[in-house]
């Protein structure tokens, strides 16, 4: 991270004082023992307590805080629940963390028009929780949904296991209330479906907290399907399992989820969760939705495809209990890895057709680097999740792991994919951006930030390679 600005550090008391003027006393945290709670997100290898943390309770308070920070020239790092895996919410010592955790209300629920309006500190799962009684749900379902906030989901354009059918956050976001760095409140979208002019909502979603602080969101809600059922398919070859995925899609089926696990992952999950998974090279979990008859119709087609590729095992869930067990291992994959070792979770995306090649090359690299990798991913949309296992207590292992991770992500780009499918760039993939984008491509993106935040005060050291954003972040230093 860039070195903190000593002039800001020196003015800490004055800045905190001004923040206390615009917020209730308990909403400004500046004590060093307490700011530690905000020193990192889920990318815990990087930590740094902020200058202060503020917890506003309304859009007006957010605006007031931003006006103060704007005038003082203090960087602001927005924070939802701090579950980012990319270091998106990592502060610098000269920054103020602006957390939206105290803004978690449901503002409006409208079933007839199929939307809900919430404050963005609300957790993903509790949005569905708010509409479940009426048999509705909010579709994007990141595995972190119990903890992560809509704020972070919008900033990262988060996805989930069911996005093959329902899309990711951007496809389910109808409107936002947002405050730009100078304190201006901007309303975009609403309960209607498309933008009057430029699709600014589309650019806000996924902008990693660099364009504005999103305080309220209008989200599309959907009626729950009548039912859902998974099947488990085991194969003795990664290629064949990849072919099955492709054949299912080509046959015109659109399951809600197609999850893929490789042998190291299967073994770890099995040891951890005892879901009864077969020991094989590749395991697929395919889930379909609908009424009993509709489920049967789709499963029939899917199982025919599956059988034609000589599976080691096919397991259809006969009841809710069996369905639960099919998902159990997959859902505990991250926990299982955590038990084994420290791990780094990547999320590069590749064209589905490149799956076998990429898995093969990751296995080769794993031998070269001497670090184990387990693969679990959303196969229908090519979003990989290689988990690299390492030992953080052993000197040099984190660096080795990061180097290995970078090679995997470059490979994803090389085969026609991208660095990140749902976790975001943050600080983690910032310096790899030049592998996916040419200087002009990055410049066009940074030009958007110039418009929303001309002084580059909002989450400034993220997303773009530091060298590329240097001049914009520190115009004075650059001019010297």
């Amino acid at each position, binding site marked *: 991270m860039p070195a903190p600005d000593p002039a800001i550090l020196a003015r800490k008391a004055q800045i905190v004082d001004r923040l206390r003027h615009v917020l209730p006393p308990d909403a400004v945290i500046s004590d060093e023992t307490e700011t530690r709670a905000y020193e990192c997100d889920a990318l815990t290898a990087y930590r740094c307590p902020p200058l202060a943390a503020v917890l506003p309770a309304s859009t007006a308070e957010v605006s007031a805080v931003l006006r103060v920070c704007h005038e003082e020239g203090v960087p602001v790092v927005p924070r939802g629940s701090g579950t980012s895996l990319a270091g998106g919410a990592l502060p610098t010592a000269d920054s103020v963390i602006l957390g939206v955790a105290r803004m978690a209300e449901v503002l409006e629920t409208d079933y007839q028009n199929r939307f809900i309006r919430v404050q963005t500190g609300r957790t993903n799962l509790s949005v569905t929780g708010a509409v479940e009684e009426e048999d509705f749900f909010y579709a994007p379902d990141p595995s972190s949904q119990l903890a992560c906030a809509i704020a972070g989901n919008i900033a990262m354009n988060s996805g989930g296991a069911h996005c093959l059918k329902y899309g990711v956050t951007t496809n389910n976001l109808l409107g936002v209330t947002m405050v730009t760095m100078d304190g201006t409140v901007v309303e975009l979208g609403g309960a209607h479906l*498309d933008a009057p002019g430029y699709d600014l909502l589309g*650019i806000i979603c996924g902008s990693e907290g660099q364009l504005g602080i999103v305080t309220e969101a209008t989200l599309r809600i959907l009626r729950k399907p009548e039912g859902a059922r998974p099947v488990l398919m085991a194969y003795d070859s990664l290629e064949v399992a990849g072919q099955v995925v492709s054949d299912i899609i080509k046959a*015109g089926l*659109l399951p809600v989820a197609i999850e893929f696990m490789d042998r190291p992952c299967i073994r770890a999950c099995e040891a951890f969760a005892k879901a009864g998974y077969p020991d094989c090279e590749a395991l697929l979990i395919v889930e379909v939705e609908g009424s009993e008859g509709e489920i049967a119709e789709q499963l029939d087609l899917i199982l025919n495809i599956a059988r034609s590729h000589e599976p080691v095992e096919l397991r259809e869930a006969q009841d809710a209990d069996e369905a639960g067990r099919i998902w159990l291992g997959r859902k505990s994959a991250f926990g299982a890895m955590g038990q084994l070792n420290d791990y780094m979770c990547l999320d590069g995306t590749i064209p589905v*057709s490149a799956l076998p090649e990429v898995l093969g090359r990751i296995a080769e690299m794993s031998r070269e680097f001497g670090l184990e990798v387990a693969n679990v991913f959303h196969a229908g949309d090519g979003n990989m999740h290689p988990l690299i296992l390492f030992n953080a207590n052993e000197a040099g292992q984190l660096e080795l792991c990061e180097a290995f991770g970078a090679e995997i992500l470059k490979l994803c780009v090389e085969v026609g994919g991208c660095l990140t499918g749902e976790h975001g760039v943050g600080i983690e993939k910032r310096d790899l951006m030049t592998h996916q984008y040419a200087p002009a491509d990055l410049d066009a993106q940074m030009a958007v930030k110039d418009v929303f935040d001309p002084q580059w005060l909002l989450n400034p050291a993220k997303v773009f390679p530091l060298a590329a954003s240097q001049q914009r972040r520190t115009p004075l230093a650059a001019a010297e």
Partner: protein
Amino acid sequence: MTLSMTEETRLQPTSEAELADAVAADPGPLRIKGGGTRAIGRAAAGNTLDTSGISGVTLYDPGALTLVVKAGTPLAEVETLLAENRQRLAFEPMDHRPLLRTEGSPTIGGMVATNASGPRRIQAGACRDCLLGVRFVDGTGRVIKNGGRVMKNVTGYDLVKLLAGSHGTLGILTELSLKVLPAPQASATLIFEGRGIRDAVALLSQALTSPYEITGAAYDPQRQKAFLRIEGFAGSVTYRAGKLMELFGSFAPVLEEDPERIGAIWRGIRDVEALHDDDGDIWRISCKPGDAPAIADRIDDATLLMDWGGGLIWARLPTGTDARQALQGLGGHATLIRTADPANTTLPVFHPEPAPVARISAGLRSRFDPRGILNPGLMA
């Protein structure tokens, strides 16, 4: 590149590189043209830059549901290719020709530049939701790419969405990647006759809040007819059609199962057939579906067609009438898609933006097109 000197100079590059050079060298202003069939907004002054020479399918991977295609490629060519593989553009792009009284062959670039989406938008998303990546040339002649060809991509800012629907004012699209979807095995349409507006919007809403995956929900006030479409595997369509017939039994809907007739019904709604005849101004109003009856009440003397369960209202009004009055206090927005008197109308084509949003839009224009040469004035 061909230069024809008919009524005006026409630039017709045949590659992205040629296009970039042409833009860099041209003092502007430039009028960006794909097929020229979606003439929305005030025609910009200047030389025409015709993108139809940059054409062809770059990559089609049916197993990955992705298509990469150059911007000047005729939409019809793409639709034929997809149909051969039993796939389609799920957002159902409308054909603007009959409504706007234009001629020519719609291109993929024009479709994206106008974010053209049809009835299925309620279920499959808009063009912008199916757009995975773009390549474009900005107003300085720089080639820029964003997104890619994979379904999930959060690498950097999403300029893909920004370019969709930007009507050629931020950049000239050269190549697009699109998510395609399987074409369904079967479909069915329920037709409700003799329904008033309130009644119809309520029933569309009830259907859209059912678990039966409605892919079309429209209402034609002239004919007092409401339409509901479902699509999918044969067994599933039969099942859901049965459920809906049961749910709405008291309205005695007619079930249409003939694919030809279903196709014709939804093409008609998609292309706003109800408003083709007669002159007047054509407005496209985007609103909260439940507000549709109130909006309809407030516009006198209008011919209407409602799609998206009421969330999209097409209105034909006497020339010069401001449809935006009807939205007061309700939210939503209105675009003046066609006017009978382009020379004299003072009504803005695009919905006026509140000051902070207008500042952002102007800021983006000045960054992507600092010389102000790309379709100047079209959206501002």
